[in-house]
């Protein structure tokens, strides 16, 4: 457990993607089975415990430590698990145990121990661990373990052990279970590739490149088909029959995460057999709802009947990877699309439909359709269109992001002129730069114009622009709060940033009442005095139009 905890701790501080992969790969390469397999389960989110409430943790420390010293320490550290982990004392006069419990032992214990035995066992484990191990254990048992890396990155780290592509691990993953002995044996070349016996496995998805104006000249419009790009969640719906004859249906996110439990309504409504690529949307009264509405269904552990009723999930399909056991991925897009259209025509499900093609003869015609989807066939669903997708009619379904066959051509984002208010130092490579920016727009408060923060952006700028903003921040600092600097933001002095963003949502967590989606810095407006920046009312109007 100590080594796993040290890895978790390091991942939490490290910001680089490749660095995270290497830290995990180093751990897997130097940790024996089955310990590393249990760690892999923890890293991919396959382990979750809620055995203990914070009250139990408090009770444990009260037994061991002076309550006044605990209170002072908690007050200083600010996090219960961390305070207890750091100050946990051995019983007076006791020698430290010679065995530090392993993660696998702890996980086994948590799965099998009767509830009343937990406090005593927990104290024994805490005695045997170092402070980082104690911290991770307390986070684990209170259900608050945060892993600073995605499941995808952990699988990528496993793949690097054998020099494999991440998608190869992804392909066999659905059939694997902790402690993943066959998986490690395979990637290390000690055993053959494990057979994927899952009747509804995930297939790595094909992704597109963003198209630039300069790309069009080299592309022949007649070689491409166009579809609407929907502002929903890309999903892969897979249905099959287990050896026991049971029908299995799963919905996967584009990274292969099984999200079926959150969408029982859609899972139940699917009646095909195969693997289908499409967009998850909320459709009410025959009309696709905005992403803000869909968001009500995302990141929920449990779904209430009310949510199912108010936000019915829907799948708009645009590709067919497998049909009734037949793999179509080696066939061209046009052929797959024809198979998909025929399948959808046969389906009885009101929750599944076909994403229509957008007819066009030239790039100019497609640009016109993209600018006005409502009159180009999207009709009442136009609000949920965020651009068009271009797919070569002859493109095979290739996992990853091959350049050439698929392009996304997004609608121009919304922009707003906002004023830089605070800047924070970045992480990793950017730790010497002020690279995270909080910006605000004008609003009236008690009869005076003041700036209210509306968002935070940390990308979108070039290296030169970063240098220029960093220099401005250092020169215009009016206040310092730890790593954060407040910069000059007066009507006639300050920096105006043109912020591009994808949409707005209401938020009670922000003073402005608004949260921005994907805000990024589009341009630096040195030419513009802050008094000419946008007002909150402008954003509210936009929110009204979108909402």
């Amino acid at each position: 457990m100590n080594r796993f905890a040290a890895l978790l701790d390091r991942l939490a501080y490290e910001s680089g993607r490749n660095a995270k992969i290497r830290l995990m790969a180093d751990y897997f390469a130097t940790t024996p089975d089955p310990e590393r397999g249990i760690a892999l389960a923890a890293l991919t989110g396959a382990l979750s415990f809620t055995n203990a409430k914070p009250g139990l943790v408090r009770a444990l420390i009260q037994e061991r430590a002076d309550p006044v010293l605990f209170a002072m320490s908690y007050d200083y550290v600010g996090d219960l698990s961390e305070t207890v982990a750091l100050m946990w004392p051995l019983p007076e006069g006791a020698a430290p145990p010679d065995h530090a419990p392993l993660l696998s032992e702890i996980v086994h214990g948590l799965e099998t121990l009767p509830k009343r035995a937990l406090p005593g066992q927990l104290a024994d484990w805490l005695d045997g661990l170092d402070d980082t191990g104690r911290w991770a254990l307390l986070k684990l048992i209170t259900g608050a373990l945060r892993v600073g890396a995605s499941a995808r990155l952990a699988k990528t780290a496993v793949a690097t052990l054998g020099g494999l592509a991440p998608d190869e691990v992804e392909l066999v993953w659905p059939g694997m279970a902790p402690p993943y002995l066959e998986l490690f044996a395979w990637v290390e070349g000690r055993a053959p590739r494990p057979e994927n016996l899952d009747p509804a496995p995930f297939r790595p998805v094909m992704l597109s490149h963003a198209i630039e104006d300069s790309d069009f000249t080299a592309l022949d419009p007649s070689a491409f088909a166009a579809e609407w790009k929907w502002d929903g969640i890309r999903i892969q719906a897979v249905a099959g029959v287990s050896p026991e004859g049971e029908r299995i249906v799963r919905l996967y996110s584009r990274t292969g995460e099984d999200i079926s439990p959150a969408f029982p309504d859609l899972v139940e409504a699917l009646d095909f057999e195969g693997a289908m690529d499409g967009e998850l949307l909320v459709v009410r009264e025959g009309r696709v709802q905005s992403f803000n509405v869909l968001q009500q269904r995302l990141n929920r552990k449990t779904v209430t009947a009310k949510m199912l009723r108010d936000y019915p999930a829907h799948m708009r399909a645009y590709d067919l990877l497998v049909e009734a056991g037949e793999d179509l991925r080696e066939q061209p897009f046009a052929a797959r699309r024809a198979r998909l259209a025929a399948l959808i025509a046969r389906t009885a499900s009101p929750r599944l439909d076909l994403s229509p093609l957008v007819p066009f003869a030239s790039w100019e015609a497609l640009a016109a359709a993209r600018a006005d989807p409502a009159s180009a066939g999207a009709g009442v669903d136009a609000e949920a269109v965020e651009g068009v997708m271009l797919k070569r009619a002859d493109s095979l379904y290739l996992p990853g992001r091959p350049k050439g066959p698929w392009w996304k051509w997004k609608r121009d984002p919304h922009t707003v002129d906002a004023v830089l208010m605070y800047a924070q130092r970045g992480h990793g490579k950017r730790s010497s730069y002020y690279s995270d920016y909080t910006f605000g727009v004008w609003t009236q408060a008690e009869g005076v114009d003041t700036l209210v923060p509306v968002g935070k952006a940390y990308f979108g700028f070039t290296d030169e622009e970063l240098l220029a903003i960093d220099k401005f921040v250092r020169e215009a600092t009016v206040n310092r709060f730890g790593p954060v600097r407040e910069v000059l933001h007066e009507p006639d002095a300050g920096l105006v940033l043109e912020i591009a963003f994808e949409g707005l949502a209401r938020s009670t967590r922000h003073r402005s009442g608004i949260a921005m989606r994907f805000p990024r810095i589009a341009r630096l407006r040195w030419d513009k005095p802050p008094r000419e920046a946008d007002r909150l009312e402008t954003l509210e109007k936009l929110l009204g139009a979108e909402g």
Partner: protein
Amino acid sequence: MRPDELLHPAPGGLYCPKGDFFIDPTRAVPRALITHGHSDHARAGHGHVLATRETLDLMAIRYGANFAGATQAIAYGESVEIGGVTVTAHPAGHVLGSAQFELSWRGCTIVASGDYKDARDPTCATFVPVRCHVFISEATFGLPVFRHPDAATETAKLMNSLHVFPERAHIVGAYSLGKAQRVMALLRAAGHSAPIYIHGALEKISAYYQACGIPLGDIRLAKEAKKADFAGAVVIAPPTSITDIWSRNFPEPVTAFASGWMRVRARARQRGIELPLVISDHADWDGLTAAISATGCEEVWVTHGAEDALVHWAMTRQLRARPLHMVGYGEEENEAPPAAPAPASPPEATP
């Protein structure tokens, strides 16, 4: 007699009326005893300074040869009489030359320990507990959450990171007097024999350590090296430099910081540290309480840091204890003040 008659807090520092001297005064005084060379304890401009040879030399390096009107060196174990008060120096284990001062007068003994640690440190003499009536202790890490791990274990973290990221420069923030040289010695003890690059601010002090017979190996100035030299190298710099413009010259740096504060995650995160190393030159909670117990004192005075917790602990051990609330200490080498890590962050907005 009351111990107060021998030594008491006064504006400017601890004052001994019988000998008419201050210990580690925060303003210029006619006569000062200096426990060690950190800038919050050792200031320039006193009339007469009594300190160890090493502390006097380090003060001369930092402030120039004329940092005081007159100086007098005292060796560990040596005693001098000042106005009838016997002053004896003992090792404090904090940094090179650091001393505790034992003051005796009419059967009353007070030990002013300055900053100290009981952990092993190859770059300075080991702390010796001295029997006394009153022990004056700092409390920089005076909370039970501060229990510093073995410095060798923390060094192993750095060594492991060098192994996993052999192409990245590892920039370690460390106070320029004491901590920087200790990190060098720890790396050498862990088998790291490659050149260690340093910020210019560390040059003279590190050279002085080596001149005192403390081997630190091949130490080179970072500004004289080529960018390619830094791949997989350790670069040591003052804490303020590691996230400053200075650090931009290094390839994909891993930012480390060697400090007792790194034990608390919010602290490390607040500073943007990627590799926190809990290596401290101050006693941790166990060290403070063990040192106080070992002196057999009847009374503890706590100078600076988390005084309340240590005073509470002393009372539960039937010791008289009082916080002195001394100001001006604890920010040695731009060290973060020991207040709770609660920066007033701007309102958050999430994408």
